[in-house]
C-alpha cells in the first residue's frame, strides 16, 4: 500500500451545537487500552505520577461500553482482530481509535509474519497513529493532545466514517476473518484419512491403546 491514508481528512459537516459538544468531548476521554502487544508497557508510566495523563482529563476505563478511546497497543493477530472489532462495535459514539506503535500502521517488524495483520486502517477507522517501536510516554501524550485538537476541529470522525463505509470495512474484515479458501495453496492434511489413522493405531503401545478404549467407553 503506497499511501497509508485512505480517506481524505475532509471536515464532516458540523453543526454549531456539535462544536460545543466537541469541546466537552475532548476534555473527558476515557480510554480502553487493548493490550494485544508490547505497547501496553508504555501506558503505566503515562498514566501514573511520572507523566500523569490525568492532568489532561484522561483516564483508563475497564470496559468498552463506557470508553471513548480504543488504544490498539501493538501488533494484532487475526484472532485478536476479531475481538478488537467486537470491542469497537460495543463502544458508544463518539469513539476514537488510536493505533499505537508501528505495527497497526504497516505491520512493523511483523510486516511479513503470517498471523499478524499489516494495516489496521483496512479494518477499523484509525483517528490517530503513533509511530515508533515503542513510542515513549511523551509521544503518547503528544498524540493525545493532537487528538484533542482534531476532536475540537471536527476532524476526528472515524466513527462516522465507519458508519458511512460500513460495507467496505465489513468486506475487508470478512476477507481476512471469514476466509473460505487457502491464501497460497490448499493444504490437504494426510491424517484426515481415517483409514490411515486406524492403521497407525495398530502399532500403538498397549498403554495408549487401553486408555483410548477407556475414553471411548466413557
Amino acid at each position: 500500500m503506497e499511501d497509508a491514508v485512505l480517506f481524505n481528512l475532509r471536515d464532516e459537516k458540523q453543526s454549531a451545537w456539535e462544536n460545543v459538544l466537541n469541546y466537552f468531548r475532548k476534555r473527558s476521554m476515557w480510554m480502553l487500552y487493548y493490550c494485544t502487544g508490547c505497547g501496553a508497557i508504555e501506558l503505566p508510566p503515562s498514566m501514573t505520577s511520572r507523566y500523569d495523563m490525568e492532568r489532561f482529563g484522561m483516564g483508563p476505563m475497564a470496559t468498552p461500553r463506557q470508553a471513548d478511546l480504543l488504544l490498539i497497543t501493538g501488533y494484532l493477530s487475526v484472532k485478536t482482530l476479531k475481538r478488537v472489532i467486537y470491542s469497537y462495535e460495543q463502544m458508544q459514539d463518539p469513539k476514537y481509535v488510536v493505533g499505537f506503535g508501528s505495527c497497526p500502521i504497516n505491520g512493523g517488524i511483523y510486516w511479513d509474519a503470517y498471523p499478524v495483520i499489516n494495516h489496521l486502517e483496512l479494518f477499523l477507522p484509525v483517528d490517530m497513529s503513533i509511530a515508533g517501536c515503542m513510542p515513549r510516554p511523551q509521544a503518547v501524550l503528544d498524540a493525545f493532545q493532537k487528538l484533542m485538537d482534531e476532536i475540537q476541529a471536527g476532524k476526528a470522525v472515524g466513527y462516522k466514517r465507519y458508519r458511512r463505509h460500513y460495507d467496505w470495512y465489513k468486506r475487508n474484515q470478512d476477507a481476512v476473518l471469514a476466509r473460505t479458501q487457502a491464501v497460497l495453496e490448499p493444504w490437504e492434511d494426510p491424517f484426515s484419512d481415517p483409514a490411515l489413522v486406524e492403521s497407525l493405531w495398530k502399532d500403538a503401545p498397549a498403554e495408549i491403546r487401553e486408555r483410548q478404549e477407556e475414553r471411548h467407553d466413557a
Partner: protein
Amino acid sequence: MTPERFSRMLTEFFGDAAVFADKGGAQWEVHAPRDRCLPLLSFCRDHSFVHLAFISAVDWIAENQIELVYHLWSYEHRVHLLVKTRLEREKPWMFTAHRIWGHAQPYEQEIHEMMGVFFIGNPDLSPLFLHNWKDKPPLRKDFDSRAYSLKAYTLEGLGLVPPADKEDANVPS
C-alpha cells in the same frame, strides 16, 4: 550420574537403537527411532529425568525429515537431556507422550498446528492459535511467510479498492 554410566544403561536396555552423545555443558543427547522413542522417554523419566520442559520440532527439509526434540531435565543431576527422533516429512506421526507427562498434550497440539505432525492418542489436536487456517502448517520451511502476508493482509493482495469518498454525503451525527 556420569554420562558414561547413563550411556551404558541405555545400551543395556535399548541396544543400538538409542545413540548417546555428551554435548558438554551438562547437556546430553539421545537419538532414537520412532518406535523406541516412547519406551526411551519412560526410561528417562524413571531415571531422574522427571521434568519435561518442552517439545520442539525441527523441519529438516533437505533430508525430507521432521525432527522432534523432547527437552528433559534432571533436578537430581542437573542435566539437560535432549531426546531426538526423526519422522518422515510427508506423513509425520508420533505416539503421544501425554501418558508419561500430562502437560505434553498442549505441546503436541501446538506442534500439530504449526508443523503438521500427527500424534496418535492425543485427545485434542484442535487449532490453538491460528484463526480459520487453510494453508499448510506455517512453520514448515517451504511455507513462504512473506508471500502469505502480502497476499493475505494488504489491499492489493486482498483485491480490494479504496472506498469512494462521497463528497455530498451528509452523515447524521
